[in-house]
């Protein structure tokens, strides 16, 4: 008796190869566990390539990220890498920003050419963040090798400014002291951008935590996963309720792969230095940026797209 390798997905309205979906989940979960990103930027286009309608691919991916980030958060929590205090503040800001972002995107669409604006902003942001992280990490790695000079005691304007803000709070897990306004406001900004771009926000949140909140890279990954978990719970319920686009079977299959991948990823990430993690994430960000740039400039195979898709 042969084992059936295909499974019909009733919401996606198509059948998929079990091994392909499990493998895809595993690969994206690995990246998620290493870098603390949701992986939607990779998963959604790959699912579309496998014949899943774009809206179902995006919504079901959010559903699987709930499971993967639970598994990843748990793994990072055990390793002491989740700053819950910081995570909650960023999350509150993210929810406010996300709600505002949805309204902004509505206005942008009414003005016309919103898609162009979104894509160009996306490419520019990925390009700037990726290049900055890459060069900064490269310089830091070189410095570590030839560290002979005394550390610079002068405080930057940014540091002085953040110290002058009210409601300073100790974030023990991250080893930083900041005003609670910082994570709240940055959370709002990331939430707005994530809603406009239609992504979970991990790609923007991680650099924000590293460079603006000055959190150590390992704590950034765990805290980012914790925050992504709640964002995706909200998206899953809303998408299932309003658009009927969550395919639970697809999500569960992806989840089986990605949860295992996220666990392995958390352990792989632990073995890498912070700067190595940053440089790898920067490379990934730049690869995605070039892919998007290519999609913008090269003639698509088909010049039609379903309304509501990506």
């Amino acid at each position, binding site marked *: 008796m042969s084992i059936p390798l295909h499974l019909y997905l009733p919401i996606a309205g198509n059948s998929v190869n079990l091994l392909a979906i499990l493998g895809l989940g595993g690969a994206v979960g690995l990246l998620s566990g290493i870098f603390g990103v949701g992986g939607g930027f990779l998963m959604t286009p790959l699912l579309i390539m496998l014949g899943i309608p774009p809206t179902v691919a995006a919504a079901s991916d959010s*559903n699987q990220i709930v499971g993967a980030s639970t598994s990843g958060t748990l793994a990072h929590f055990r390793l002491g890498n989740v700053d819950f205090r910081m995570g909650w503040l960023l999350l509150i800001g993210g929810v406010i920003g996300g709600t505002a972002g949805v309204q902004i995107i509505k206005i942008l669409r009414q003005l016309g050419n919103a898609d162009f604006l979104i894509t160009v902003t996306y490419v520019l942001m990925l390009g700037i963040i990726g290049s900055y992280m890459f060069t900064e990490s490269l310089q830091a790695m070189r410095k570590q090798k030839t560290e002979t000079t005394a550390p610079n005691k002068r405080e930057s304007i940014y540091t002085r400014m953040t110290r002058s803000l009210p409601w300073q709070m100790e974030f023990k897990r991250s080893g930083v002291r900041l005003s609670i306004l910082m994570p709240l406001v940055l959370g709002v900004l990331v939430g707005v951008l994530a809603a406009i771009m239609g992504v979970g926000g991990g790609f923007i949140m991680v650099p924000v935590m590293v460079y603006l909140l000055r959190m150590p890279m390992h704590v950034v990954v765990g805290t980012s996963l914790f925050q992504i978990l709640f964002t995706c719970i909200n998206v899953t319920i809303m998408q299932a309720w309003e658009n009927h686009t969550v395919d639970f079977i697809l999500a569960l299959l992806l989840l089986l792969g990605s949860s295992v991948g996220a666990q392995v990823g958390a352990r792989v990430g632990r073995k890498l230095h912070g700067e190595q993690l940053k440089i790898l994430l920067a490379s990934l960000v730049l690869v995605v940026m070039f892919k998007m740039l290519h999609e913008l400039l090269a*003639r698509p195979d088909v010049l039609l797209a379903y309304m509501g898709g990506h």
Partner: protein
Amino acid sequence: MKTKSVLLAALLCLFAGARVCAQDTIRMTVTPQVIDIGAFYNGTTITATGTVPADSLVIVRFLGDSCDLHMKQKGKLFGIMWMNLDSLIFKGVPSVCIVSSAQDFDQLANQAGTEASAIASLRLSSIKQNTRIESNGNNQAEAFEELIKLKSHEGLYLETSGNISYGEAAEGQKSFRADIPIPSRLAPGSYVVELAAVSGGEIVVRSEQPVTVNLVGFPALLSRLAFGHAALYGILATVIALLAGLAIGMVFDSKGAH
């Protein structure tokens, strides 16, 4: 005058009789008439068998219900970047269209001579005749070509040849058998298998058989929950994902894989 009327009536009767004869010369049976989509459905094959006039070519089409498609057409912005620009609505597009023939369609078009136009009226390109495009752009002809390309890419539109075979001709009739490939990307609903016999440059007879596609078992249960109790479905999907994530996390922890 009376004689003329009688003659006309007799001619009409003769013509009607000929049509009935033509209708009688075609026979088609489709199996299965109901496709059940269960958890392991991955496409299937429908078999249409029957008889047609011996001198005719058979074209068999599997057609889905007509629907309206809301789409975006990509174009170049500032002459550099490809973006979604114009909005389009395709009205009256069949959701699925699988056209089958014994011979390659392009070969048929070259060889068939007078049959060519009749065969062309059954091919994918003929969908255009029954489709209305509402657009805020000007490239409607190109848009239709792109629609065929997109649907073909999804496996929902297909021209396939070699899957119809004929039996020996006897008493002006010949038997046929068509094995129609049904795609895995299939939604529940009503479909038809349409048979057309082409002879003498025209479609001499047509016949249709309905095919019903149903969701059964677990896919049916899940679909009812997702569309009938959407909020509960969303919450359940979230809770199960959370529990699965926790369980996998605990399994890894208990194995001490540090």
